[in-house]
């Protein structure tokens, strides 16, 4: 009789989620990692192949803490390149969903909403590629209980499309990609050039 499958195993749980089905097919050729731009551009520790190995070997804590789990933006450059047709971003998303389920928090920045100026037109909701924004009734000082855009940090990948689409400029990215930083940087150059 074939061995019963232990549904508590990380690999089994990943396989049960959409996109994770072919997890075990990975033969570790590394195409996904080298196709991915995150390792060279953002984080030298990023490695989808390693994350798949961690899932295969039930290294749950390592997988959830892995930077790969949180940085994948599901651009799916790797998916068409994978010779085993593994939907890598599906696997990563499955791991991420399991991590969020267990209370892990996305360590990366996400978009921030200025609830005092948001008019809840829903443009950000429409353009978000990750369905991370929704309109939620919120108590805003001076404005009462009104719907305002609310970002789910577990889904937001900080691409900034919401900010570019927002007419009331109520949503932006933190730190160096904030509207005010970009505009200040722009003017610093333009002013200096003229002087």
């Amino acid at each position: 009789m074939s061995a019963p499958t232990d549904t508590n195993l990380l690999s089994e749980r990943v396989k049960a989620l959409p996109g994770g089905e072919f997890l075990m097919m990975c033969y570790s050729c590394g195409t996904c990692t080298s196709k991915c731009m995150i390792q060279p551009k953002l984080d030298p520790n990023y490695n989808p192949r390693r994350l798949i190995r961690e899932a295969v070997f039930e290294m749950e804590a390592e997988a959830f803490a892995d930077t790969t789990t949180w940085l994948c933006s599901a651009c799916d450059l790797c998916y068409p390149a994978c010779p085993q047709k593994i939907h890598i971003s599906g696997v990563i998303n499955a791991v991420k969903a399991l991590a969020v389920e267990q209370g892990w928090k996305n360590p990366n920045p996400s978009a921030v909403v200025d609830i005092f100026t948001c008019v809840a037109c829903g443009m950000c909701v429409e353009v978000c590629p990750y369905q991370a924004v929704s309109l939620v009734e919120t108590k805003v000082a001076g404005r009462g209980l009104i719907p305002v855009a609310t970002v789910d940090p577990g889904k937001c990948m900080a691409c900034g499309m919401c900010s570019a689409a927002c007419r009331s400029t109520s949503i932006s990215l933190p730190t160096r990609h904030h509207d005010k930083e970009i505009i200040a940087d722009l003017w610093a150059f333009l002013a200096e050039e003229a002087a």
Partner: protein
Amino acid sequence: MTDLESKLTAEIANLLDDKKVDVFIAFKKAESPLHPQPAFFTESNQLGDFVYNSLCQNNLAAFIPRYPLSARIGMVVRGCENRAVNHLVVEKQHARENIFMIGVPCEGLVDWHKLVNRFGEEMIAVDEAKDEIMISYRDRQIRAPRQELLHDSCLRCVHPNPLSADVTIGELKPEGDPTLARTEVAAFSALDNAARHAWFRKEAERCIRCYACREACPMCYCTECFVDHGVPRWTESTVSPAGMRAWHIVRAFHQAGRCVSCGACERACPMDIKMTYLTEKLNEDMRTKYQFECGMDDKTQPPFAAFNLDDKNRFEL
């Protein structure tokens, strides 16, 4: 009181008496006969002042975002106002089921600039018949064909009929000719770059930054406009020519795919700036590139809320 006005009064009185709406937005008489003003009726006994004619310049949809979502609002709507309400529903500024629209097929609005320019400022009353406008002075009355006095944006109007009103009063009008509507902007687009720029500079220079256009527009409902932002300051908010230009560029561009061509901005402008030259260009692009016309229903999102791999690609030059 005209026949239409009495029909409307009866309808509105019913709505208010039956408590079907909390407030009814319409027009009432004002001191100047040329400028009926928006009114917010909550009781049927207030309707004595009610007025509805071709001098009612405002787009009443502009008041909708000021009410909480739960308010039940009644409105008299023309074609453009109906479309504006539709789009406000798309942008979740109000729930469609909380708006009761009484539709009136629109004969076109009389442009008071044209009126004053032609007949002077001494008129005491302006009345309308089917195709004519009657201007009364203390001692005499002059008739003029309505067509000659209509506002430019009404001359271009394609959809004068309300599209989704709950009740429609009056006879439907024939749809306008879309090509006619586009000739003016097309002719402007055909000018060379320098000429267009010279025109724009000249127009924008007259601007006095009163923001009447912003207030009149049903789509300008932001609690804080981008020009009023402190940090980052997107553009100069002083009365400098460059700042004016920036204001007009962004004001118009924020209407891309959202403008219902009602012309309220232009009618509101004290300096007579031809703002529709900007928005109509964008409307035209939305039509040709994305087959989108704003406000035709209350479901379709504007083009900038979506994107498509097959979009017309001018990205790589």
